């Protein structure tokens, strides 16, 4: 049985009910139907206790609040009095329609009436149902403590003796997790049909595998990939983990409709699109209605373009203490974790804000002692005000650096993985708006005053930019103007940049080399830096992958002597129809894949080494997704890592020995099986021949029962004619001339 979300949740949610059949809930359901007339009533608690005389005053005061969500009147409010002519602190209210009553519960519950009193509003039926006598037990019964059950180790995969990596493979309707065995076929860990409905996703440190179902998100983990956590967001479409795996954001285009009896979602979540979950407890922290990104202005004659969903809607700071969301053009809301309260109770108003990015690591700026996280954002030109890129320190919300820019069409913010630099890619148009150019403005975050360096040697538009992970080099892809509607891709140019060598700090960024006339559009850095794959993906006509080494151990070109890079093309590999390229978390292997989600031609995945040697090709029907299991950060200190690097030769000797041994074993095994198979086959043939001879005897058939009677005019058979030589005469007219004689 496939472990679909359906069956799991059934088991989980109804376990108790299966044990003892309790008909009372059915009964109560039945009763509710009789009481349908009370749908319009709500009960208001938490009112001040007033003497009978001021009752009308209180009711009038209360009505203002009550009428803000629906229609009711003075007559419809009933506030009973005690014998002592005092009110009791509650009132019954009848609305015109049941919908208004529901709205009152939703919106007025928890609303303060004055400083001392807070309203609590419930449906009359709910009070009947849940609070009726007998429903609440009189005596306290201590809840039963479940016996301790040992859980599977969530990081067991890291203990693999050969330090192999795992990956998830989604093809057809099956998802499997496999060990990578280099060029040998991968070893299966689990393979389940219908494991997910939409896609699978690893958590950022590899602890969980998330599957996405119409009922919600399911997390799996441990050595047997058992069920870990469940987040019932109906019709969820997109999910996002926080960087330290503490929280999960889920999004669905459909607003949530909370139904009664839902154990996890409450009225809080009704009508919302986004939920931020606490992974540990499995409970929603807070839910939101999603803001759509304003679509670009509709092109003439076009229909209004579809609104784009803003995703990830919530961006996490590196230590996941803060999460920020932008309301495009207006403000940034920063929430504090773990309680998801708005930082400082207000959003930061920034006119025109267009994009925000957190620093991917906690940076320490020079001269700054206190804790801070950096948030970078930009806003376009508005009226005569220039476009602005700014950096905000959180939690102080102080703007620590801004830069004004002119003639800006678009801006993209690219942080370096350690937060040491941020590159602001500025697309500029000329005054006539006819030609475009790109500036790269690089902020050195760690240096005093955050100096900015401008790299503006690029005439063409930059279509892709990528920093070396943990490094200070980057690759950009530029393209000339594309002819509108042209079928062929415009040619692109790939440029490599590196800082000048200048003592211990990185000097100015300089162009190392530009490779012209490419079609490349994707940049894929090794997670350990140094190696980078520049590829053409999602293309019909080209599908090349260039493997580059930025620190080639060989002769260096004369002109690049003072740059901190030695660029070398290692290999070019082609993979027809490639759509995705993924480095394994150790930077040893690269997988290129062609997914059926993009096209249905030659789907499958190929495994390459980091220098472009193809290890295996795996054409797979209906291949959808390949995903390496991420690894958490190393536990070794910097010194220990250095030590390992120093003694690499020693270690590699050991591993080479192991590899050779493994190959030897494998080869002998192959030869042995082949021998066995061949012998079995020969024995089978021999036995068949014997059986056939026996049968011929038994049936009294002549030796040549299977030979046909020769044709009447056939040449006499019998003597072996051996090979026949067919001689063929071919006459060819080489030349033809006509001569008139005489």
């Amino acid at each position, binding site marked *: 049985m496939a472990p679909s979300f359906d069956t799991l949740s059934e088991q989980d949610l109804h376990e108790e009910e299966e044990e003892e059949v309790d008909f009372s809930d059915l009964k109560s359901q039945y009763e509710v139907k009789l009481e349908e007339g009370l749908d319009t009533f709500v009960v208001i608690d938490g009112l001040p206790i007033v003497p009978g005389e001021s009752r009308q005053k209180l009711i009038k005061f209360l009505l203002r609040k009550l009428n803000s969500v629906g229609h009711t009147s003075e007559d419809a409010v009933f506030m009973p009095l005690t014998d002592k002519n005092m009110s009791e602190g509650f009132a019954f209210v009848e609305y015109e329609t049941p919908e208004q009553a529901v709205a009152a519960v939703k919106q007025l519950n928890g609303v303060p009436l004055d400083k001392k009193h807070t309203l609590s509003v419930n449906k009359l039926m709910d009070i009947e149902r849940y609070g009726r006598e007998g429903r609440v037990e009189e005596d306290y019964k201590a809840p039963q403590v479940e016996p301790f059950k040992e859980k599977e180790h969530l990081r067991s995969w890291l203990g693999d003796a050969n330090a192999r990596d795992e990956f998830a493979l989604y093809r057809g309707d099956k998802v499997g997790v496999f060990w990578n065995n280099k060029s040998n076929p991968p070893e299966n860990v689990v393979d389940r049909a219908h494991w997910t409905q939409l896609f699978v996703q690893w958590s950022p440190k590899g602890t969980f595998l998330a599957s996405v179902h119409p009922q919600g998100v399911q997390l799996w983990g441990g050595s047997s990939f058992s069920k870990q956590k469940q987040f019932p967001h109906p019709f969820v479409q997109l999910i996002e983990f926080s960087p330290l795996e503490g929280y999960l954001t889920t999004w669905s285009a459909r607003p949530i409709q909370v139904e009664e009896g839902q154990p996890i979602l409450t009225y809080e979540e009704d009508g919302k699109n986004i939920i931020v979950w606490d992974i540990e407890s499995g409970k929603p922290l807070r839910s939101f209605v999603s803001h759509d990104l304003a679509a670009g202005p509709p092109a003439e004659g076009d229909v209004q373009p579809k609104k784009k969903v803003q995703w990830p809607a919530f961006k996490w700071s590196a230590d996941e203490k803060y999460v920020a969301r932008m309301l495009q053009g207006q403000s940034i809301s920063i929430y504090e974790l773990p309680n998801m309260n708005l930082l400082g109770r207000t959003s930061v108003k920034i006119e025109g804000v267009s994009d925000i990015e957190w620093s991917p690591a906690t940076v320490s700026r020079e001269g700054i002692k206190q804790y801070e996280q950096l948030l970078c954002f930009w806003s376009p030109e508005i009226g005569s005000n220039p476009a602005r890129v700014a950096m905000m320190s959180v939690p102080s919300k102080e703007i620590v650096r801004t830069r004004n820019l002119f003639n800006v069409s678009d801006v993209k913010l690219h942080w370096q993985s350690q937060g040491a630099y941020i590159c602001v890619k500025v697309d500029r148009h000329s005054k006539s708006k006819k030609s475009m150019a790109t500036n790269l403005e690089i902020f050195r975050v760690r240096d005093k005053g955050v100096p900015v360096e401008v790299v503006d040697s690029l005439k063409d538009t930059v279509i892709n930019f990528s920093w070396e992970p943990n490094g200070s080099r980057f690759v950009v892809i530029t393209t000339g103007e594309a002819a509108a509607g042209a079928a062929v891709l415009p040619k692109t140019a790939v440029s490599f940049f590196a800082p000048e060598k200048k003592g211990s700090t990185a000097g100015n960024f300089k162009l190392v080399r530009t490779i012209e006339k490419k079609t490349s559009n994707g940049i894929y850095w090794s997670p350990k830096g140094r190696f980078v794959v520049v590829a053409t993906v999602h293309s019909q006509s080209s599908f090349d992958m260039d493997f580059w080494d930025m620190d080639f151990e060989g002769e260096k070109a004369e002109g690049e002597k003072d740059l901190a890079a030695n660029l070398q093309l290692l290999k070019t590999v082609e993979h027809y129809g490639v759509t995705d390229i993924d480095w394994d978390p150790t930077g040893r292997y690269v997988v290129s894949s062609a997914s059926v989600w993009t096209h249905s*031609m030659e789907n499958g995945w190929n495994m390459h080494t980091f220098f472009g040697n193809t290890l295996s090709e795996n054409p797979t029907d209906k291949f959808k997704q390949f995903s390496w299991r991420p690894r958490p950060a190393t536990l070794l200190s910097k010194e220990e890592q250095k030590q390992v690097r120093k003694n690499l030769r020693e270690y590699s000797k050991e591993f080479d020995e192991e590899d050779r041994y493994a190959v030897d074993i494998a080869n002998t095994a192959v030869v042995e099986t082949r021998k066995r198979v*061949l012998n079995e086959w020969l024995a089978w043939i021999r036995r*068949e021949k014997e059986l056939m001879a026996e049968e011929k005897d038994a049936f009294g058939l002549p030796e040549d*029962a*299977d030979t*046909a*009677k020769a044709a*009447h005019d056939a040449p006499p058979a019998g003597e072996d004619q051996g090979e026949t030589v067919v001689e*063929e005469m071919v006459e060819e007219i080489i030349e033809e001339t006509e001569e008139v004689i005489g």
Partner: protein
Amino acid sequence: MRPILLSGHERSLNQIKFNRDGDLLFSVAKDKIVCAWWSANGERLGTYNGHQGAIWTVDVSPNTVILATGSADNTVRLWNIKTGECVKVWDFPTAVKRVAFSPDGSKLLAVTEKRMGFLGTIAVLDIAYGDNLNEQADEPSLRITCTESKATVAGWSFLAKYIIAGHEDGSVSQYDPKSGEQVENIQAHEFDHQINDLQFSPDRTHFITASKDKSAKLMSARNLAILKTYTSDTPLNTATITSKKDYVILGGGQAAMDVTTTSARQGKFEARFYHKVFEDEIGRVRGHFGPLNTIDIHPAGTAYASGGEDGYVRVHHFDKGYFDFMYEVEREQLRK
């Protein structure tokens, strides 16, 4: 291995067949004519004209006297190979998809289509090789009706002991050619993946089936045990067992109706060679620009021919390298 290109048909090929001596090659296509070729140089010897519909199948009697063909015009015809005249016509209620002579040539089986209320059948016809070839029995000596899933292909085992048929639902069955009873039925291929071809080894102890499920199976004629499985990445139309060397050749490609919707690269219109015993793919021969519908091997194992949806027959005479190729374990075996 330079192929000889035989271009005599105007439509897609359905079956090709070498005679037992291997000097002649017969081909039938959807264009209603039967062609006879010299296999050595690809010269066309002649045609046999008379069918009114696409010809699905052809077989040569083991003594190369009679040629049998089955067609969409609901007839099986016998031809005098030497003179080219049609010596006998049998009418059936539906199209004939496969004909095959028994090992000694005394019987001919014909597989008929299931259509218009008629169930698929396998009819057995007695063949006489008298002085006058026109003298043939008018009625089949046996009719096997396929009640469950219609037969698509069929052939004779060693000593004509069984008739073995491949079915539309991917199963293979064994019939007794005397009583017509089904002896065995095995779901050899994936359910509902039609078996498109079934060819015997020279000694008829085993045979190979090619199916839409992208695999070919080598099976025992005695008990229908699956001996080997050859998996490919494309639906298979045809498979044959080579003599002299232990190989099998598979042919197929994307279904003809889907070909125009994708690039030629996607089609996989190649003849694939697998090692019969080790099940490894050892080579491919490209050339056709449509799916391969039929492959036959020269009885001496020195050449093979393939016919494609593109209307061409390609005859390949093997090079020295083909005969020299051997696995290390085979070489060892040989030395012993």
